């Protein structure tokens, strides 16, 4: 049985509860940064490659921001909110493991100028709901883990 794991899930941002992406809005500029949370990275493993769409690309919530590969599993990075890509983290394109090393700061993926923030943020996990969501996800992963 896998031992209990503790995940670092900061409460200063919102989360896509299904796809395990975090979203943090800068109060001054209104721009949001998007990255992968610790539970999502635990599920994926070490990232080998990342490809991101170009700055200037408009994406709707649920559309692909890019693609990543970890352990031969490739996955679309699905936009947690709608907006236009205004910045990409070029450092993680060259060194994807930087995302695993520091998912919430140096490992951010893209910066978006959100177009429907207020209504879409309400559908993300945030604040007091984070603890319960994390507990449920940990339990789900524990149930999946093989028993030796």
């Amino acid at each position, binding site marked *: 049985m896998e031992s209990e794991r503790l995940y670092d899930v900061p409460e200063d941002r919102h989360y896509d509860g299904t796809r395990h992406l975090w979203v943090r809005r800068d109060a001054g500029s209104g721009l949001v940064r998007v990255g992968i949370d610790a539970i999502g990275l*635990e*599920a*994926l*493993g*070490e990232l*080998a*490659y990342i*490809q991101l769409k170009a700055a200037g690309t408009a994406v709707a919530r*649920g*559309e*692909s921001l890019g*693609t990543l*590969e*970890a*352990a*031969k*599993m*490739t*996955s*679309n990075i*699905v936009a947690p909110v709608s907006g236009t890509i205004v910045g990409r983290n*070029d450092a993680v*394109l*060259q*060194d*994807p*493991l930087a995302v695993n090393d520091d998912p919430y700061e140096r490992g951010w993926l893209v910066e978006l100028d959100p177009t429907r923030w207020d209504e879409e943020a309400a559908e993300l996990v945030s604040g007091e709901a984070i603890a319960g969501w994390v507990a449920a996800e940990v339990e*789900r*992963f524990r149930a*999946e*883990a*093989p028993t030796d």
Partner: protein
Amino acid sequence: MSWRLITDDGAAAADGLAGDESLADRVGRGTSPPTLRLYTYRPHVALIGRFQDAAHELDLATCRRHGIGVNRRPTGGGAILMGPDQLGVALALRARGLPGRARELMARFSDGLVRGLSGLGIAASFRGKNDLAVGGRKIAGLGIHRSASGGLLFHASLLVDLDVALMARVLRTPFEKTSAELAAVAAGLDTVRNILGEKVALTDVRARVAAGFAESFDVGLEPGELTGAERAARDTLAREKYRTEAWVFQRTEVPDADGAAVLTTPGGRLDVRVALAGRMIKAVHVHGDFFEREEAVADLEGRLRWHASNRPAVAATVREWARLHADGTLAPDSLTQTILSAVRRARATPVDGPYGCFVSPGREREAVGG
């Protein structure tokens, strides 16, 4: 519950891959049923992994000369050669209800193949993160693509048979393609016909694999074909993506590198070569004059594919391998030390690093003292 079963042969590269990806997308959206496709490609096509560089991985001049189609899979991993003797598996399901973690998901999907091979009398097992092996020798490569729509595509290439010499001509390799080197490549893999004999028909293997998936997922299989809408989606994706040079020849920003190290140990001379993609080990090759079963060495090489290159991760994997192969002579600490020396040298000298899915980096021509 039942899935649709599609069987077809002689697929062109773009059509085959576009069909698989568009199916996964449609299954995720709920506009197509769960589908298991068991198929072969026309002779031959060379398929690189999602983020590989075609010019690095393939001898494109040889491909052109022999009419070998080239394309890029939506799934990850190394380059493969596909044709009438390699069974392609494409399973498109909705992600909901399946494991969320990559390794458990890969193991879950691979169980269908394991059961199918078991029906043929072959005891295969899931190895590392993404290989299926028989006695430590790789018999199938596995990959998964998760679509934005919530669909999952499980890809596998099962070696019913393999022309190792042709594969070595098509895939770029860093070693001389001598008979000895080809034998070393062949020692790391196995095929259904190598195990069971030349008379095994691909259609029989296909039937067993279908039964294996049905048993593993407790579903019925209803033979079917693509609908008109599915064919249209496939053709659009093939035209807009898989037949474009922008897709086939795209480049990644992660630098490739390779390096080698040699260490003389009480168990013998240890010669290790590694290929890196950034800080990840793409492939490792271990050879020398030590006494170790070929299958055990192949098993180690398989476990270290697409593996983190830091000391704790490498040491843990080598220790686990040594625990399972306790009859060998290679000391885990020496092995770890030599691998990490090769990794350090690779980082110091980035170069092209082409290694296919079934090929490990080969014998070092100018070994550097370890």
